[in-house]
């Protein structure tokens, strides 16, 4: 069994959203895009009771729940083997769930099997409401039948509660981001206890022997000569106070089995070195304990034919990169299903593009789409190969931003990156427009001349895409192409007439022409006349010379006027890309007849810059 779909309503920052999961899914996205919310939603619905945190007003979307406000989390469980309700009485019968049929291609559910909806599925839900008299959240887990008339908190509600046994059957195990690793391999750890219980219970005899030894130590502490005097005095005091013998003894544990189990501390020993407790090792080793234990637990469950769903938040936080890959590959093999959240390109690179789910949260509306609908195959276009294979790390880090900018070619992307560096290094602390570009806008290294195809591929993934085209004839053609088709690009920015990125660079430099005289630039023999700079940068050699580009950017950093122009360029792009109004007169908008596209033209005659 696995979770194939999750619907969230009114939980934390997600007003509504839907996520589809494959057997192996890595959720990526900007901060605050809702990755943790998705993980916690799964934990609320499918975690064991202990995992269910106490909910407060802040867990409700908007933080101010009224009587009718609800949190509703619905998971669709599929992957029943065999795919027939007659074999799953615990899930599908009167008094339990109603069978539905899941269409893996569309993610839709149908009340009866169809040619597309082929997978038997059960929908289960978690609901919460906030009681204004007790100031507590009330929660319920139940079988979810349909979208209407289903308030589980209504008087006479017909909802059927979800038995805990079915939740256990799913075997969801969560490794949250805020974990403490050092006691994982001890009885203080839930996972360890679970694993021990699973293989057949506590080592009872060893525990009892150890308990007895701890009750009667060979050398009791209270008899040590340095303590004996103090202990004797305490005993005398107690006798005076209570009028009877009450002797103090000092034991290492509570002298019961529980105390022994609690006191167990994992140690790890490398050859020729003393054993060290887990917490004395580097993060690498102590977090790998969990890796070992998890995979052991998973393979135990798998060997017995039980379900095992792994949910790991940001493995990159604690696990070193070489083990990240190993951990994920291992999990992929061991778990029935693994769902992982991550910020890390290394972690993301373990998954195929169709397993990477990009989450974007725009004022509460969550969109979650895989980078590709299906596995990439040999018929994939050059654009797809570039976006999702050769340049995947760059694509993934770009789409993790709240807004995405698709320029005409990859030199535009690299120049914009340099502009970002200039902005980060020269930004004034009080600048109201700030360096929003670098953390709000991700730039795609577009394969040259493929802006339209790139846009179409990414539009399915990311809801906030802006395209950037040159001010030439080709740029006009792209602009026309992007404004057409089934889903036209909502925002297209064009450089001024006749301009390409090199003209922008030259314009930036022109703010202080002395910039080209910088000593580091001497070997490149830049034209002395700033008016010739653009043409020079467009010449074949200079256009591709990224060392020259970097050196020129460093020179720009040193010139206040130039760097100010660079920042201005970015702030205009960032404002448009994130849907905010750009500074007045910095760009001219023109609404396209399709009713969707706004075409912006950058204005280089901006006063004061």
């Amino acid at each position, binding site marked *: 069994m696995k979770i194939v779909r999750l619907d969230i309503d009114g939980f934390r920052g997600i007003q509504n959203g839907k996520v589809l999961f494959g057997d192996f899914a890595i959720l990526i996205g900007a901060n605050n895009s809702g990755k943790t919310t998705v993980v916690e939603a799964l934990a609320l619905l499918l975690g064991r009771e202990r995992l269910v945190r106490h909910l407060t007003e802040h867990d409700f979307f908007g933080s101010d729940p009224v009587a*009718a406000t609800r949190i509703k989390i619905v998971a669709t469980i599929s992957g029943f083997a065999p795919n027939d309700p007659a074999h799953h*009485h615990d899930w*599908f019968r*009167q008094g339990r769930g*109603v069978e539905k049929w899941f269409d893996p291609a569309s993610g839709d559910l149908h*009340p009866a099997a169809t040619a597309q909806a082929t997978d038997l599925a059960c929908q289960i839900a978690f609901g919460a409401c906030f009681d204004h008299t007790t100031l507590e959240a009330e929660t319920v887990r139940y079988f979810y*039948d349909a979208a209407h008339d289903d308030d589980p908190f*209504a*008087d006479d509600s017909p909802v059927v509660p979800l038995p805990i046994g079915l939740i256990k059957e799913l075997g969801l195990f969560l490794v949250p981001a805020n974990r403490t690793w050092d006691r994982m391999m001890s009885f203080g750890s839930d996972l360890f206890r679970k694993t021990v219980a699973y293989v057949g219970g506590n080592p009872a005899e060893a525990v009892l022997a150890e308990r007895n030894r701890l009750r009667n130590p060979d050398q009791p502490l209270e008899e040590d000569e340095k303590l004996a005097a103090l202990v004797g005095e305490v005993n005398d005091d107690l006798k005076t106070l209570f009028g009877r013998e009450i002797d103090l003894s000092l034991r290492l544990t509570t002298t019961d089995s529980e105390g022994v189990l609690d006191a167990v501390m994992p140690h790890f020993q490398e050859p020729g070195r003393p054993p060290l407790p887990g917490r004395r090792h580097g993060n690498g080793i102590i977090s790998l304990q969990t890796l070992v234990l998890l995979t052991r637990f998973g393979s135990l469950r798998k060997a017995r034919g039980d379900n095992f769903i792994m949910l790991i938040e940001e493995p990159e936080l604690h696990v070193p990169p070489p083990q990240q890959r190993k951990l994920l590959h291992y999990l992929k093999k061991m778990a029935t299903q693994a769902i992982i959240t991550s910020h890390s390109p290394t972690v993301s690179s373990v998954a195929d593009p169709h397993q990477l789910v990009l989450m974007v949260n725009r004022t509460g509306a969550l969109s979650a789409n895989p980078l590709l609908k299906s596995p990439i195959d040999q018929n994939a276009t050059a654009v797809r190969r570039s976006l999702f294979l050769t340049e995947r790390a760059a694509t993934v880090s770009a789409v993790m931003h709240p807004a995405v900018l698709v320029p005409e070619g990859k030199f535009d992307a690299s120049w914009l990156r340099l502009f970002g560096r200039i902005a980060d290094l020269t930004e004034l602390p009080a600048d109201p427009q700030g360096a929003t570009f670098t953390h709000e806008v991700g730039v795609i290294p577009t394969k040259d001349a493929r802006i339209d195809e790139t846009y179409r591929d990414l539009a399915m993934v990311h809801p906030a895409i802006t395209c950037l085209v040159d001010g030439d004839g080709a740029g006009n053609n792209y602009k026309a192409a992007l404004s057409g088709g089934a889903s036209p690009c909502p925002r297209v920015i064009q450089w001024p007439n006749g301009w390409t990125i090199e003209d922008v660079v030259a314009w930036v430099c022109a703010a202080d022409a002395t910039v080209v005289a910088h000593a580091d630039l001497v070997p490149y023999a830049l034209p002395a006349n700033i008016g010739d700079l653009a043409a020079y940068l467009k010449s074949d050699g200079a256009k591709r010379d990224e060392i020259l580009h970097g050196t020129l950017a460093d020179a720009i950093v040193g010139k206040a006027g130039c760097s100010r122009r660079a920042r201005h360029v970015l702030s205009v792009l960032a404002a448009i890309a994130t849907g905010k109004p750009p500074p007045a007169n910095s760009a001219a908008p023109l609404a396209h007849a399709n009713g969707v596209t706004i075409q912006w033209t950058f204005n280089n005659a901006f006063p004061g810059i």
Partner: protein
Amino acid sequence: MPFRGFEGPAGSGKTHRLMESVGERLAQQPLLPHQKVLALTFMHGSRRRLDEELRSNPQLRGKSVAMTIDSFALQVLTRWRSLAAALDLATGDFNETCNACGQLLEHPQVALWVVRSYPVILVDEAQELAPPRLRIISALAPHASVFVAADEFQCLDEEVDTGPFLEWFQGGEITQLNHIHRTAVAGLLNAGANLRQLAAPVNGPGLRIDYFFPNLAPFRIGAAIHQAQGTRAVLFPPAGRDWADAIAQRLSEGLQSPNYNIPPIRLALEPRASDEIAAVMAVVGVADLLSPAQIAERFAQLENPPRWTPQVISAALHSMSRQGKTLWTAAELRGLVERKAASFRAYTSDRGRGIPLLGIHQAKNRQFDHVVILWPHGVPGSDQLKARLLYNGITRARISCKVLVRGDNLLQQAPFVFNAA
């Protein structure tokens, strides 16, 4: 496998045989731990009595669930409303709900979903299965072991066309039960047998059919009740309520005369749900828009509030705190009142103090040692229906039955004399 059917007159032990053969079925083919026997019947009262009977049966105790057909239908329809919507099934009143449920159950996936929990289904009083409800049972029959008890003659609803049921019933494996176990009193047995053939019932041991002058009638009724030992009940057919109320009033005062000295007798009218609901809704105006607190104030004006009114108020308060519903229209409140009255009836015993005074419909499938039937003028329906009503009244009795008619001319009419006979 065809379903099993048991057919026979009142008191012939249909329910008993039904349970017995379900027990045999379970012995041959035990239930899985999560499975139960589903017992379906019509009214909340008969559901409760069926439930009691199931609990007292050692083979079925803890392994059965009794439900009214209507609430079963609502449950299935609620859970499968996605499919119902996809099939565009009409829902609304109970008939439509049952019909929609039947249509759903005709889809094997739904029937099997029910049968995975309830592989054995028994239906009591199946003669009342009008087509929408019959559809439910006949859709389940191919997938479950179904056991049905019925006596067509006991169908008291002229609106119900029993034809489709009888036709379906022929398809089962039917056992005819002819021996009456409830009573061995000759007068009662003969009257029952006569009425089934639309022949006049005759006075005999245990049975008296009499007319008394209006002034005498309360005394004779009081004496009959007062002298009887065991469980007693006073029954009346439709149109008999006013006379029954008047008699109840007289008896409650005690009766004194040279020949009689009868202490006060309390006849407890078993209220019908619809009367209770009407009484409660009388304090609410059509255009009223009430808060839960105002609803409580209005209900406080009721002289004799039904026992379920507190549940209505607490449900309204619950809706305010849970759903932010602050005001109720009269129509919404009526819906809530009806739900609460029904669920109260479903789970609360109607045993009150005093001797039950109830309509013949309400008395169905109950039994008493001594029964008094008050037969007024103007009982509606055909001769056939009147015979059925009287039959149902007389067959409630184990030891004695006294039928009092309000006018002596009534003795010359059906069901006391039949023109055809």
